[in-house]
């Protein structure tokens, strides 16, 4: 990075927020053809209040004025919106780059050709198992085949460097090399992100989140791969092991990133869909820019945070207390340890809480009737299939891989 001056470190600058987000996540619809068990946004059914095409264009106009370089578009499955490709074209024509996450359902050979022709569009295919067996238990029957077909189409169209995005779980943590091999086979880049207890993920987090030893192996594996593998700054809580991973190693919520949901609600981050993190709505006076600049919630996040119980820990300077959303949805205090704290403080805090009630994710657009195909891992047959449904193009993580 450029080092010409002795100004404050960038990370400190970022903690006080920027005039506009560096990038933001925009979930265009809650509709989805899948029903992944860990869907962050509890997607499935479209919400009748979703932004219209004209409203989406107005948001893009604002992003252009604010010089937001690119948006991470997700959902739901964004490509099922009939105006999706038009909105992508509109954004890129206005110099707002697009990276969209998809399960691959609409990535036909023809579509892959047109995507390969644009410099301003990047594609991220979600895959949560290196084999159909592991993937389809999370994402639903046939979803592995759909994703691989999309990858094949992109590769054949000459789209190099598209992303394969994996949410690391207890079931796939042993497949990292296999994911790498799939990425190499298609000329793609691997991106690993963290499982959050958000949306339907709250229901499955206990059984799906990596064990402490898997977490350690993941960290070592990532350190060895350096910048070859993207993480969207998702694993900064692992910096407590020693060296930080590439990235800002900072929670960017409300400071450098945020989420716009399908109905225009603006949240501090994609993993925090809950009224406590709701900053406003793009339909309000002043639009998105006013929410970003004037929201009291965001102003609070931009003030110096206290480390609370973590302050005296030797790792605090590296992990900064971990992920706000992960703490919130597991019922831990926001100034306490991350539930997956590498020093084990989170586990102890969870054990001490003894299963006390935790905040519930806000809103649920899960399919009502479709049976969930999954029994995850060793879950006893007793509780039966999870009531809400899976899906969504799952990862949208906020900070794509910068480093200060």
């Amino acid at each position, binding site marked *: *990075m*450029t*080092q*010409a*001056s002795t*100004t*404050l470190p*960038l990370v400190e*600058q970022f903690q006080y927020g*920027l*005039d*506009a987000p*560096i*990038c933001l996540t925009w979930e265009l619809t809650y509709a989805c053809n899948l029903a992944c068990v860990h869907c962050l946004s509890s997607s499935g059914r479209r919400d009748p209040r979703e932004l219209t095409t004209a409203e989406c264009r107005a948001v893009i106009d604002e992003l252009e004025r604010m*010089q937001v*370089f*690119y948006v991470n578009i997700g959902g739901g499955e964004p490509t099922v919106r009939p105006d999706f490709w038009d909105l992508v074209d509109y954004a890129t024509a206005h*110099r707002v*780059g697009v*990276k969209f996450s998809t399960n691959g359902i609409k990535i036909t050979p023809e579509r892959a050709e047109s995507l390969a022709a644009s*410099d*301003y569009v*990047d594609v991220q295919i979600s895959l949560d198992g290196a084999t159909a067996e592991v993937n389809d238990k999370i994402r639903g029957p046939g979803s592995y085949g759909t994703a691989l077909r999309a990858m094949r189409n992109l590769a054949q169209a000459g789209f190099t460097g598209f992303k394969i995005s994996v949410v690391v779980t207890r079931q796939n943590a042993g497949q990292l090399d296999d994911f790498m091999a799939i990425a190499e086979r298609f000329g793609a*880049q691997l991106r690993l992100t963290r499982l959050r207890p958000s949306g339907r993920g709250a229901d499955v987090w206990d059984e799906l989140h990596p064990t402490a030893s898997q977490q350690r192996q993941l960290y070592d594996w990532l350190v060895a791969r350096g*910048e070859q593998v*993207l993480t969207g700054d998702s694993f900064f809580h692992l910096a407590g092991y020693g060296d930080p991973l*590439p*990235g800002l190693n900072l929670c960017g919520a409300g400071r450098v990133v945020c989420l716009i949901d399908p109905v225009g609600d603006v949240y501090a981050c994609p993993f925090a869909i809950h009224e406590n993190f709701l900053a406003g709505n793009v339909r309000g006076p002043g639009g998105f820019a006013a929410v970003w600049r004037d929201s009291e919630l965001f102003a609070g996040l931009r003030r110096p945070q206290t480390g609370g119980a973590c302050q005296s820990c030797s790792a605090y300077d590296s992990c900064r207390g971990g992920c706000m959303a992960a703490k919130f949805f597991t019922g831990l205090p926001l100034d306490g340890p991350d539930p997956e704290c590498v020093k084990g403080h989170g586990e102890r805090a969870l054990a001490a809480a003894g299963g006390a009630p935790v905040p519930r994710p806000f809103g649920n657009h899960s399919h009502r009737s479709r049976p969930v195909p999954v029994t995850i891992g060793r879950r006893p047959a007793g509780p039966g299939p999870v009531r809400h449904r899976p899906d969504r193009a799952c990862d949208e993580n906020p900070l*794509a*891989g*910068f*480093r*200060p």
Partner: protein
Amino acid sequence: MSTDAPPRAESFDLDRPWQLHPQVSVRPERFGALLYHFGTRRLSFLKSPALLTVVKTLGDAPSAREACRRAGLAQAELPAYATALQTLASSQMIRPREDA
């Protein structure tokens, strides 16, 4: 988006004309600026307002040295700025300009 490549070892040629890459967007910030390259999908940071002035001046100046002078930099500051510019060159944020 990927991250920056490490700067190359060679030194920066202050005496030739340079320009911002046409696919790069610049967004001024209090600390300097954010740069985003739409082709490489990389983000960079300019950590001082003076460096932002240099970068914005490059395309109109006959040399990078002249752009630095117009930005009001002292001679002693040039080596640090040359290093910063080299980092930008190696990530294709700026590129040599072929003048007639």
